[in-house]
């Protein structure tokens, strides 16, 4: 297969775009997609400061790499989940990435904030591990961005992540989740940082290829708690559809964003309050994170 741009041997074929690119032209294509995402949703401007949530995986480090190359003022935030060797290795990848590029990396320890590392949190709650972990991440990233004075929090969610989340929400008709799913969630409260997903136009395979071709040393191993996660089952279904019909994932997600999301957003409205315990934003009296921390505290009490 030849590169669509220059005719050299291609490194990656993109069936949904009916195209293939050599390494330099794929990197150019990838960055153009990120620029288009930022422009289309007005995610941030050059004078914004962007805190990138990094896990040590391909998506978040690829995102940080692009934003640095595009000249944005960024820092990384790594959440140490305390998941055995997986956390040790993923943290080391983030630290090495930041050091090599002269960037600041903020480290937040979940064990300090919630009262225990994720493996203990899992035992203390009846929630699926990924649910308690996701809740902790959203809370701590927002808090870290506020504390360090950043105006935007960026995550490495890609097209596959977003399509799988949408699929799961539709399967259960979770209209509140459908109203909140977007590449850009504006700040609707002084203590709520704007959240953006600049990789939403790019597939998981494309972010992996970008990371590989840029020589980014990322953690390939999967989080041990992700095995059997529902999101993986949804991705499998969607990838089988993609194999039969290239572009299926893109059409599913973009169709929702262009034609359906606004209706769900209009139907759901919430009043934002400040948590009586920690002061962060919530819809109730006590936020879900403080409830989780309280549950962990009771579980670990002697």
């Amino acid at each position, binding site marked *: *297969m030849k590169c669509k741009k220059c005719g050299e041997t*291609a*490194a*990656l*074929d993109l*069936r949904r775009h009916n195209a*293939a690119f050599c*390494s330099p032209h794929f990197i150019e294509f990838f960055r153009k997609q990120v620029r288009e995402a930022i422009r289309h949703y007005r995610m941030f401007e050059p004078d914004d400061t962007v805190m990138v949530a990094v896990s040590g*995986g*391909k*998506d978040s480090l690829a995102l940080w790499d692009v934003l640095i190359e595009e000249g944005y003022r960024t820092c990384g935030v790594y959440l140490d989940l305390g998941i055995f060797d997986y956390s040790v290795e993923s943290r080391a990848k983030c630290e090495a990435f930041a050091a090599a590029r002269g960037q600041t990396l903020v480290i937040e320890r979940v064990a300090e904030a919630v009262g225990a590392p994720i493996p203990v949190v899992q035992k203390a709650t009846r929630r699926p591990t*990924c*649910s308690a*972990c*996701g809740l902790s*991440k*959203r809370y701590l990233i927002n808090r870290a961005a506020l504390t360090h004075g950043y105006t935007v929090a960026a*995550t490495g*969610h890609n097209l*596959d*992540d977003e399509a799988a989340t949408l699929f799961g929400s539709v399967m259960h008709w979770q209209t509140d989740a459908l109203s909140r799913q977007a590449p850009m969630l504006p700040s609707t409260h002084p203590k709520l940082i704007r959240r953006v997903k600049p990789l939403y136009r790019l*597939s*998981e*395979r494309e*972010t*992996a*290829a970008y990371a*590989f*071709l840029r020589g980014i040393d990322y953690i*390939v*191993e*999967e*989080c041990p*708690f*992700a*095995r059997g*996660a529902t*999101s*993986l089952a949804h*991705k499998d279904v969607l*990838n*089988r559809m*993609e*194999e039969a019909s290239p572009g299926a994932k893109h059409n599913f997600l973009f169709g929702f964003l262009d034609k359906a999301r606004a209706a769900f957003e209009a139907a759901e409205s919430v009043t934002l309050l400040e948590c009586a315990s920690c002061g962060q934003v919530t819809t109730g009296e006590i936020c879900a994170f403080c409830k989780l921390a309280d549950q962990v505290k009771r579980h670990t009490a002697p």
Partner: protein
Amino acid sequence: MKVILRYPKREVEVSGRRRVKELLRDLDVLPETVLVIRGSELLTADAVVGEDDVIELRPVISGGAW
């Protein structure tokens, strides 16, 4: 050729030249779920791989939630 797979990490021997898309089909791997790596290069579906090659099929699918 030697093919390196993950989850769990393992190696399988595959004999005979073939295109990458045929190799993936024979191993029951969806093309959308892996990078096909030979040394420092990525291979497209129509690339031909042979007896002496070492091919890594690196998964690209992440689980979990935010």
